[in-house]
Each structure stands twice: as C-alpha cells, then as structure tokens.
C-alpha cells in the first residue's frame, strides 16, 4: 500500500491521533459550518475513508498574507489537522523543493490527479504586461489556465484572487483581474478577506473533503455559512448603534466607552464576513474590538470605496441627522445605509477599472 492509498483514518491512527480527537474535530467542523449535529457521524465516516486529495496552491499578485493566515493558525489545532488530510503538492512559499524541482512536483501532481485535484489561488491575475508576475518564466494567466484545466474545483483564498483586491484598485497598473474573470468552466468558491479567517479557509476545505462538493454559495460565490451575515449584525457594539451612541473620534469619551464606530468609518453594515463571530488570533478579538472600524476587506472594491474613515452615510448621502435617527429606529436606517452603500459598490464594480496608461517617461524607458 502506497502513501496515497492510505485513508485519513489509517493516517490518523498511524500518527496516534485518538478517535476522540477526531470526533472532536468533526463536531467542531460541523458547528463551524452550521451543519446539524446529526451530520457529525456522516462527516466522520466521509473524512475517515478519504484518501488525501492533491492540492495545488498557486500564488500570483499577492502579499503572502493569506498563506500566513492559514499557516499561523493556532496549534495543535483543527486547522493543522485538516492539512494532514490533504496532499499539498505545490506551494511556492512553503514547499521544500525550489526551481525546476518545484515545477516538476506540480507537473507530476497534475498528471497523476488530472481532473481530480483541487486548486487554491491567492493573488490576482495580471493581464497587462505579463512580465509583472511570472513563475519559472510562465505568466500567471498561462499557469492559471493550464492548471485549472485539470482541476476539480478552484478555491480563491483572499480578496485578491476572489475580486482582484488591492492590485485591482485604481489605477490597476497591471490590469489585474479575479480568477473568475479568467476561468469560466470550473466550480469556483471565493473565500475573501485580507486575509481570510484561518478557520473559514480550512472549513471550506473540510466541507469539500467530507461531501465532495463546495458549500452553498452566495451571489459572490462566497460560502453562505460564513458570509451570510454582515459584521454589523453580529457586532457586540451593535447595542450602542441602536441607542445612538457613537464615538466621534478615536480618543473621545465615546471611544473610551466602546461606543459604535459607525461615524469613524466602520464598514460593518456593508461587510459580510464572520470576524465578529469567529474572531482572530485564536479567538482573541477582531478589529472593532481593538477599537478600529471594519475596513470591509471581504467585499469587492473595498480599497476604492472611499476613505476608511468616512462614515458610510457620507458615501451614501445620509447626513448626520439621519445617522442620529438610526439610534431611534434601530435596524431600519442601518439597513438602508447598508443597502445604499452596497448599491454604490455595485456601481463601482460595474464601472471598468481605469486602464493603466504609462506616462511619457515610462514609455520612453520601455
């Protein structure tokens, strides 16, 4: 029996992982995915009999923050455990091999698992000058098209691969696009965030492994279970919003008392993510808990959606009086502001990104 023939159950047993630890992992995965507890035995049976699927991780125009996030999850952890259940055959940053050996590993993984491997992408894809981002002399877009051809599904980790992210922001000098702008014939799940929450990334993989399909997705191809509610609705500062108690600056009495950060530019009402529930750094806190408003990093075009410090009401033409009224009527105006801001985002998305026009000096230097 070769290593790849071993099931997860065989592997866990060989590593001395007890059945209790495995059941705990399955129970917490079910809870994270909001699956009914009756599904735990099904998850356990499915995962246990799984053979490690080959995973190819492609990094394009990115900062490696998504890899950092997923790899620096707390240990020992469910996250580290799930990575024992997949065969991560190619990942620039962490694989031991380099150069031609690394590329050979990718080629072998693709040949041996053609049609069945999972592709994870972090980073946006440049479509302008191909020299902006290459690996082993191959442009990112060529690598993506070639690797995606034999993939069972593609998971876009982070806002850059999901929506273009920061490279896509005006003036978008590399003509960056999202993976879904290039690949049209494969199932794609977007796991946005800058970076995404580690448990969200691994739970999406766990769902795929256990059920052989991607989780239910929203209109932006995000797993509904994690991106179905906005930050504002689950924020512990929400009661202050409803009472009309807002911090007006980062060092005023309101800020010291932990009041709502809406007027300081918090994008919680228009941002769909699980930060307020799952939190960061082993569940320690999330940005709003640390005293800073949400930047909206899991939404398309968050970098071009106006200042991080302007309240949503400014961007959506709601004046301070309307915001104050929100205190009186609670959810209604918040939802209205959210809807208006989302409408604004749609307009931004609909407008083509400004093409990069080289300056005269740049043209002369080329």
């Amino acid at each position: 029996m070769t290593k790849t023939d071993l099931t997860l159950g065989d592997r866990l047993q060989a590593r001395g992982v007890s059945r209790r630890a495995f059941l705990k992992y399955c129970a917490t995965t079910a809870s994270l995915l909001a699956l009914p507890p009756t599904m735990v035995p099904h998850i356990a049976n499915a995962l246990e009999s799984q053979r490690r699927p080959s995973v190819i991780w492609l990094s394009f125009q990115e900062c490696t923050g998504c890899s950092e996030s997923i790899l620096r999850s707390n240990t020992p952890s469910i996250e580290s455990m799930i990575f024992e259940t997949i065969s991560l055959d190619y990942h620039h940053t962490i694989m031991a091999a380099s150069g031609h050996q690394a590329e050979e590993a990718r080629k072998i993984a693709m040949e041996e698992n053609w049609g069945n491997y999972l592709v994870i992408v972090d980073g946006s894809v440049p479509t302008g000058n191909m020299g902006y981002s290459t690996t082993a002399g191959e442009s990112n877009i060529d690598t993506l098209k070639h690797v995606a051809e034999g993939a069972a599904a593609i998971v876009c980790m982070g806002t850059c691969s999901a929506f273009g992210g920061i490279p896509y922001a005006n003036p978008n000098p590399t003509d960056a696009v999202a993976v879904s702008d290039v690949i049209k014939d494969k199932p794609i799940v977007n796991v946005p965030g800058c970076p995404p929450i580690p448990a969200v990334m691994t739970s999406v993989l766990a769902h795929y492994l256990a059920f052989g399909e991607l989780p239910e997705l929203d209109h932006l191809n995000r797993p509904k279970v994690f991106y179905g509610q906005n930050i504002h609705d689950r924020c512990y500062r929400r009661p202050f919003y409803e009472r009309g108690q807002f911090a007006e600056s980062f060092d005023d009495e309101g800020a010291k008392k932990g009041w709502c950060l809406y007027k300081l530019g918090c994008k919680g009402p228009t941002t769909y993510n699980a930060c307020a529930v799952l939190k960061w750094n082993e569940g320690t806190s999330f940005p709003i808990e640390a005293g800073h408003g949400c930047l909206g990093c899991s939404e398309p075009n968050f970098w071009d959606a106006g200042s991080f410090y302007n309240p949503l009401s400014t961007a959506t033409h709601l004046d301070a009086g309307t915001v104050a009224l929100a205190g009186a009527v609670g959810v209604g105006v918040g939802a209205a502001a959210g809807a208006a801001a989302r409408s604004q985002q749609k307009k931004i998305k609909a407008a083509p990104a400004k093409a990069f026009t080289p300056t005269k000096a740049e043209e002369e230097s080329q």
Partner: protein
Amino acid sequence: MTDLTLKDFMPKPETGNVILLLNEIRHALRHLAETGEPTTIDLSGIPMTKAETEEFEAALGTGEVHAEIDAGGPSEVIETSFAGVWRVIHRASEEMTLARYIEVTRIPEILVAHPSDMRAALTRLEARLELSSEEEAL
C-alpha cells in the same frame, strides 16, 4: 398618559431563547427516556445574551459528573442537574471555545473508549509485555 421615552422604542436586550431551549431539552429528554434515542443541540447557532447564557447554565445546574478531556485541545463534559442532559464544550485552548453542545444521551460519545483506540492500545500493551518478558529472560 404615560410619557414615552426613546428607551421604549429600543429592542429589548433579551432574545427569549432560554425558555425555548429548556423546552427543547425537555422534549429531547422525554424522547431519550421513552426510546433511548439521543439528541444533540448545537448552542453556537442559538443567539443568547451573556446574561441569558448565565441564566441558562444556572437553570441546568451541575450534576455528578465533570470530565476534562485532552484530545486535540481541551474539552469539558459536564453533566447537568438533570440526568441524561450534558453540556459538552470543545476548546482549541483555554481561551478559545470552538463548539458548545447540549447532548441529551446516556453518555456523550466523546467519553466512550472507541474500538479503533482499543485495538491500538491492545497492540501497544502486548508489545510492552513481550518486551518485559524478553528482558526478564535476559
């Protein structure tokens, strides 16, 4: 005429889920007693305020069994004052709670020794005894 204030229009801080949850547990316990079939309730999907969580835990109380498990991080199994109703809490570390369940069952699955672990344990024990007898023979 009563003077209305802004407070009167604000949402009440309670979700009202404590009594609903206790009723669900009552039904599950009756089902267990009559049929032997267990029920598990995932508490992470049920919103409750901090005060309600405390009220809920106080209503359940604590029973005779309190077990701590060290398997992939710490877990706690607490029997409530109602036999057959257990609180099961899974953590990644002392500070980070991963999942909270109410299990209405004779004994939570996580406490039971599992056949695969027992087989592995038997192999280890046999190897150890063989080693001991070899050492004695020397």
